[in-house]
């Protein structure tokens, strides 16, 4: 049990604290590649030490609290945006068993529900940060962000409902196991695993869209659109408070990616794997598989950001309420009908 | 307007399908222009006789087989004219191409560029290319007179300048010499263009051929900001535009005002802005100690031209200088009574300033019934030479060199000034005067020796002036003043026509306008609550002074209005009207 927790926290720590700087570096390098530039290459070989330099710089910057700001809310806002994102990661099974160690921090029986509930809390960080800054642009960003998050959570939940109906469970561990079977008994689909993406492609697309929107990533980066709102909700932040916001954003991104991997991409499972094999080697292998999938999704995140232009705010809302929600509802209905027919 | 109301005989014509009432003795071109139909033209000028040589104003007429020049076509009942047809467009293109054959492409160095009709019409009506491949003709560039310069290459020989010299200025110094493509404006050898209004040929030149020498290579006209104002150099009071750029006056241009100056102004007025930008302009408030030792009776003996040099005055600021003025006036009033004051206004002040100065005088000096009031007078420059064109046109140069003597007479004579100037001089020299305020504001002013010397012996001399000179040298308190390009106000010209002068520039340094100065002093004395704009002061004035009643800045407008009835406002005919008789 202790071991289980230690390993779990080890991986958890790496993912939440080690990954963001790496992601920042990756993002900058990939953006440069897409734009035919070089990207960071001054600090260390290939600019690898750039994230560290950035971190040091952020640490030594003056921590400014604007006059007229609500000091308490202003201080806890970054924490509020950081913690829930990291917390939601707890229910992600990032591997099978390494010996006796269960590679998951908490196998809650409410699983997915916990994740959605916790992730929604992230909006408070943005809302508080924007409001507490006593500045008009952050406030606008916060308002936009709240509206956006509330809207897209509906779609996300509806997409998840379809998945829960498909898997018949809300426990993430069980979901992964449910995907560890072939898609069909016979025929051409027998070679495909029963991953959520193949079973529910529509739900997958909707969920991915929601993940972008929930993370305020391009093309849905309404709260921080530089052109209109200067820097968005964190305009007035500096030093480590800003860094926390920044990190929170990347952790949220990681958590979301992990959710996508777990629900739609078979989690730590890979075709041809024996689910009952609880050896340490296999456990490490599953972690690596999970990580590979996770990085793939993260890469997709970054790739999309440097490809698509930002939506206009009314387009964001229209896409949600007039596009995604009807489709998600229809998707649930179809899932239900198929479920009734095949049961 | 003041022109006698004459019933104008009109005929009905149609221009581009629009029906118009056209005065019978007015060319179709002018009727079109008056009705907002623009026809390009070069040689036609409303004040000059019709020449019809540029061919730019061609239009088609229903009663003529070929296109006619609208400047020399008089309307026929029921005729239809077209100014926008394809044919007319084509004709304009051809005419412009022809006019541009020998015109050099030197817009970058041409000072007309930006207000050049040739440039503008080429852009609006011209072809985009020329078929002319041969070499262009070169024609002379020379100074036609002291003020006017000719760039022959740019001339399109519209002969406006020639007609101006003949019909308006009357001396006919210009002619068109040679023939064909070597056609060029010139003067007779040895008789340069030297009439007093010669600069106007540059204004009416539609292209960049004629310039007032003062403006050549100075700046570009598209940088200029225009302010409508009134010329300050004589009692004619021409309506002008003050063109400024980068905080400096670049030129003065006459503005059409049929009741005052028609389209013209004189060469002297044209450079009348120079003193306002002079480097030695007074721009600092200076306060010195009161002059001691001028006891009553022997002031005359002590008076000397070298009395207090400037150095005894220390730099000060607006507030402190005003405080010094009121303190000393207060002291003098307490010790010597109103008879120890002297107030000398100037015929170069605006009527608002005179009005305020009048009020300020009574406030500072106070009044004791039965005792003599303050000594008063008015400064003015001596008359110059009047000029009337030989042909008897409308435009004249007044002999009176003071822009607002009429206004001073209306506002100050009788009510404020009741004694002749000699009485003022006597009182100044008597030694009884302890506080004198002299408003100058006159460039190149040399007061009579008696006046100057008398000032040098008075203990407190406040001088409001623009340039250093004999007045400012004798001041114990020096208050810099604004010149006419820096202040708002109304000037009344010699024929009783009131016009608004507008500030085109801020006064130099920390200077505040006299309007502010007088009002601030009145405010400190408790005589008024607020410092008003010139418009507000004028409203007060109009309410109080009969001649100005029922006028306001609004009714004065851009062209001014008549404020006195003691002289009939007869407008003399312009050149064309005179020629027609």
């Amino acid at each position, binding site marked *: 049990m202790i071991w289980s927790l230690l390993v779990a926290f080890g991986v958890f720590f790496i993912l939440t604290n080690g990954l963001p700087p790496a992601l920042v570096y990756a993002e900058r390098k*990939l953006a*440069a*590649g*897409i*734009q*035919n*530039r*070089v990207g960071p*290459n001054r600090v260390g070989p290939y600019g690898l030490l750039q994230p560290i330099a950035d971190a040091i710089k952020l640490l030594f910057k003056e921590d400014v609290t604007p006059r007229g700001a609500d000091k308490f809310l202003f201080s806890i806002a970054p924490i509020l945006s950081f913690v829930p994102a990291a917390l939601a990661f707890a229910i992600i099974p990032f591997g099978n068993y390494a010996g006796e160690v269960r590679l998951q921090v908490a196998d809650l029986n409410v699983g997915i529900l916990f994740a959605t509930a916790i992730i929604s809390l992230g909006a408070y960080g943005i809302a508080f940060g924007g409001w507490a800054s006593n500045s008009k642009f952050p406030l606008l960003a916060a308002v936009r962000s709240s509206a956006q998050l509330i809207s897209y959570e509906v779609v996300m939940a509806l997409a998840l409902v379809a998945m829960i109906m498909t898997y018949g469970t809300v426990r993430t561990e069980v979901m992964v196991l449910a995907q560890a079977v072939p898609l069909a008994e016979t025929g051409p689909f027998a070679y495909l695993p029963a991953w959520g993406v193949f079973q529910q492609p529509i739900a997958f*697309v909707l969920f991915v869209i929601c993940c972008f929107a929930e993370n305020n990533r391009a093309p849905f980066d309404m709260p921080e659109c530089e052109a209109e709102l200067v820097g968005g909700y964190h305009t007035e932040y500096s030093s480590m408070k800003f860094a926390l916001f920044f990190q929170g954003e990347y952790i949220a991104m990681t958590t979301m990616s992990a959710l996508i991997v777990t629900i739609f991409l078979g989690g730590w499972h890979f075709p041809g794997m024996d689910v009952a094999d609880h050896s340490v080697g296999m456990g490490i292998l599953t972690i690596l598989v999970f990580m590979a999938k996770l990085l793939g999704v993260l890469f997709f995140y970054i*790739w*999309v950001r*440097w*490809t*698509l232009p930002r939506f*206009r705010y*009314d387009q964001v809302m229209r896409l949600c309420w007039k596009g995604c929600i009807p489709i998600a509802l229809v998707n649930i209905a179809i899932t239900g009908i198929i479920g009734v027919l095949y049961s | 307007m003041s022109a006698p109301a004459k019933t104008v005989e009109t005929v009905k014509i149609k221009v581009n399908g629009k029906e118009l009432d056209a005065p019978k003795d007015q060319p179709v071109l002018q009727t079109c222009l008056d009705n907002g139909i623009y026809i390009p033209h070069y040689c036609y000028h409303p004040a000059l006789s019709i020449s019809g040589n540029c061919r730019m104003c061609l239009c088609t007429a229903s009663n003529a087989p070929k296109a006619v020049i609208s400047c020399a076509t008089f309307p026929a009942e029921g005729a239809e004219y077209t100014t926008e047809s394809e044919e007319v467009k084509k004709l304009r293109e051809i005419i412009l191409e022809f006019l541009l054959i020998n015109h050099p492409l*030197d*817009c*970058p*160095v041409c000072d007309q*560029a930006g207000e050049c009709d040739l440039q503008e019409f080429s852009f609006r009506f011209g072809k985009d290319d020329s078929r002319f491949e041969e070499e262009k003709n070169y024609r002379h*560039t020379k100074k036609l007179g002291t003020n006017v310069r000719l760039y022959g290459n740019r001339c399109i020989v519209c002969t406006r300048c020639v007609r101006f010299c003949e019909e308006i200025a009357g001396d006919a110094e210009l002619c068109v010499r040679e023939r064909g493509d070597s056609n060029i404006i010139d003067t007779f050898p040895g008789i340069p263009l030297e009439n007093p209004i010669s600069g106007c040929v540059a204004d009416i030149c539609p292209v960049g051929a004629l310039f007032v020498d003062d403006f*050549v*290579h*100075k*700046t*570009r006209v*598209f*940088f200029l900001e225009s302010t409508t104002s009134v010329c300050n150099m004589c009692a004619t009071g021409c309506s002008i535009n003050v063109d400024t750029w980068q905080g400096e006056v670049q030129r003065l241009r006459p503005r059409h005002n049929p009741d005052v100056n028609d389209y013209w102004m004189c060469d002297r007025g044209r450079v009348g802005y120079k003193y306002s930008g002079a480097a030695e302009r007074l721009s600092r408030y200076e306060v010195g100690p009161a002059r001691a030792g001028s006891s009553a009776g022997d002031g005359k003996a002590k008076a000397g031209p070298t009395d207090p040099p400037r150095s005894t005055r220390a730099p000060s600021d607006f507030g402190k200088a005003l405080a010094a003025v009121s303190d000393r006036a207060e002291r003098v009033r307490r010790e010597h009574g109103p008879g120890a004051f002297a107030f000398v206004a100037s015929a170069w002040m605006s009527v608002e300033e005179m009005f305020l100065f009048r009020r300020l005088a009574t406030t500072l000096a106070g009044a004791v019934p039965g005792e003599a009031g303050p000594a008063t007078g008015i400064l003015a420059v001596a008359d110059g030479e009047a000029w009337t064109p030989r042909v008897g046109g409308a435009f004249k140069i007044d002999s009176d060199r003071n822009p607002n003597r009429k206004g001073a007479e209306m506002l100050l004579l009788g009510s404020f000034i009741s004694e002749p100037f000699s009485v003022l001089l006597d009182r100044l020299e008597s030694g009884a005067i302890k506080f004198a305020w002299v408003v100058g504001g006159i460039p190149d002013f040399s007061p009579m020796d008696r006046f100057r010397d008398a000032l040098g012996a008075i203990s407190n001399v406040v001088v409001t002036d623009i340039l250093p000179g004999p007045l400012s040298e004798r001041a114990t308190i020096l208050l810099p003043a604004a010149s006419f390009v820096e202040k708002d106000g109304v000037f009344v010209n010699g024929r009783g026509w009131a016009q608004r002068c507008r500030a085109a520039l801020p006064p130099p340094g920390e200077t505040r306008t006299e309007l502010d100065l007088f009002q601030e002093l009145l405010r400190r004395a408790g005589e008024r609550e607020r410092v008003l704009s010139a418009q507000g002061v004028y409203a007060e004035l109009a309410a109080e002074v009969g001649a100005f009643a029922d006028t306001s800045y609004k009714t004065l407008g851009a062209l001014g209005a008549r404020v006195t009835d003691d002289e009939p406002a007869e407008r003399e005919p312009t050149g064309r009207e005179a020629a027609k008789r």
Partner: protein
Amino acid sequence: MAGPATTHAPETPSQTGIGERLFLPSVVKGLLSTLRHMMFGESFTVEYPEESVYAVNKFPNDENRRFRGEHILVKDDQGREKCVACMLCSAACPAVCITIVPEEVDWEDRDRRPKVFEIDMLRCIYCGFCEEACPCDAIRLTPAFYQVSRTREEKVYDKEKLLNDDPDDPRGKYQSPIHPGK
């Protein structure tokens, strides 16, 4: 567009195809395009100061052509400034950094030249409008850009400095007659 001022232009109803309305095909197209750049695109970055902007030839047919650095005033074949002080550059300048005072000269071909011609390089935004406005090809922007100075006053270039034709000077070598790449 009747009615009150709207913040957005009305949507054009031309996006009719289901594919276009779904966005997804276009999104995939865009993604593939950026992927292509990422995988095969060559970097255009000139890694100054290791690489020299003048020497690097990343654009063989477009040698530094679009780069707008500091100005020169061009001299004519007699070594006089080509500028006739028409002030069109200062009229076109959005940063109002060009000061010109014209003066009269009695040259055969022109009668006007700048007495003072100053460009405040600290205000200049290197937009190149002056170059475009010039009717005499008298002002040009050179590729020179790493000019440093110790005082602000030095960055106000006067006529002498702008007329530089010293071949060793990073700006002067772009003086007439041939401007490389122009």
